[in-house]
């Protein structure tokens, strides 16, 4: 498999947007170079022919861990809400969602 093309400044700006990070012009320059360096190092992995090898997402294979469906105590609502930056009527309060009337 051939490694993808080198990461560009525009790629980094796009990724920052996806990750909800706002970067300065200097940070964009710095991170573009640093991410390219790490991805260049990863070319040893990206260029291997591993057709037919199954990916391993978890080293210890455990599937379908279930518990009995019974009512149990959970975290205290007021204690949890007490950690929130803003609360109204026992709910997390956020600023307006884009596009809605205030």
């Amino acid at each position, binding site marked *: 498999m051939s490694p993808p093309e080198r990461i560009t400044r525009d790629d980094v700006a796009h990724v920052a947007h996806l990750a909800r990070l706002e970067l300065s012009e200097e*940070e964009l320059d710095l991170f573009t170079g640093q991410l390219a360096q790490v991805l260049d190092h990863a070319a040893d992995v990206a260029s291997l022919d591993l057709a037919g090898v199954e990916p391993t997402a978890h*080293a210890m294979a455990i599937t379908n861990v279930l518990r009995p469906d019974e009512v149990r105590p959970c975290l205290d609502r007021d204690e949890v809400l007490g950690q929130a*930056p803003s609360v109204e009527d026992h709910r997390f309060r956020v600023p307006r*969602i884009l596009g809605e009337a205030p």
Partner: protein
Amino acid sequence: MSAPRPSTFLANAVRSGARSALEVVDEHLAAIAADDDQVHAFNLVMADEARARAIEVDRTVANGDDPGLLAGVPVALKDNLCTRGVPTTCSSRILDGWRPPYDATVVTRLHRSGAVVVGKTNMDEFAMGSSTETSATGPTRNPYDTGRVPGGSSGGSAAAVAAGFVPLALGSDTGGSIRQPAALCGVVGMKPTYGTVSRYGLVAFASSLDQIGPFATTVADAALLFDVIGGHDPADSTSLNRPTPRVLSVLDDGVAGLTVGVLVELLDGADPDVAARVHQAAEALAAAGARVEEVSVPEVRLGLSAYYLIAPGEASSNLARYDGVRYGLRMDAEDTVAMNTATRSSGFGPEVKRRIMLGTYVLSAGYMDAYYLQALRVRTTIIEAFDAAYRRCDVLLGPTAPTTAFPLGAKTGDPLAMYLSDVCTIPSNLAGHPAISVPFGPGDDGLPIGVQLLGPALSEGTLFKVAAVVEAAAPTPPALAVGARS
């Protein structure tokens, strides 16, 4: 020869009433107060909580009851382990002011064993780093040379044990974050088999790799702490529901009949003095009756690249939760997306941003197969190669880190150079296997060196008994610059 067990002696003194837990805890709090300004091992010292719990332990003893195996023993917690009502910051501004509404399972188990939590230790921000320099609270310094790093990311826990502030501490190890700082600080550090210690209440970095484990001054103390924290926990869906190896009872069994493989790939980039210590440890194991041979597992060379695709991928997903809505920092803005963005941009430091972006990139459309899935296929090949090696060998031996502790600031401008500090420890995380770092004398620069023992899944019993033999053969350790160990 029996392995030294300082925490057992301490706990037994408290359990018998020969010493009070309060006196023990006060002594350690005094050591922290005297010297931690030179080390900055702690983000938070919980003096009031610790003294209150020590008094409870003493009351239990006075009532004729047994507080447990760690009665009155002071323990430090890496600051990514949740403590109910007590700030848990991950050394990040984004968790400013957060007091978790629950205890991590390991914290509950410590309390049940009579241990006394004395504080939360400094770390690389969200455990992303190898030197504790990415912490928003400033770096921790190495107690052997305060101009040098303690390693990381659990550098505060390693330094706290090294300086004698606590006999025991917990850290977390995603790519070497327990073993590498243990090596650089001259203490024992162990990463358990994935799933043997509950991750409930460990703030997630890379969930398929993260594992909590012990720091101690001796192999036996690390074994004791592992026995206390290990075992199935229904609150963690990745917790193994099968018997966890008990290690304390097999510690003095020796290595006769075992085969130890010196893993040559781990010696590739190691400094000559580090490599020499590994060979010296191998000779000591041979002298104690083990069969020692060289083993090559070329696939581990791919570990570093695979790790720096997988771990950031998982991190980018895990850290999406820090959005300014439910806890921690919020930067106000006119709408929710702007608030999310302002909060994350202000709350995360540069290394965390770098890894979130790297992870977002390798998981994004067009790159996922070439990078992320390819790294997961490499993970398969590494596991299969280890399996083949463990058909010949009971354990593998190598260095824990390629060098001794480096100067503060030496690698902060070069992320790839920093990442290379983890090259010897990462393969065990990718495979889910246990590994332990044991101090093995000074290097040419007079700083601590650790040798690492690696084993297959659930081989903790074997690892600890081999580690005890290595420990018994270890050269005299270097002298501390700060603190003192009893």
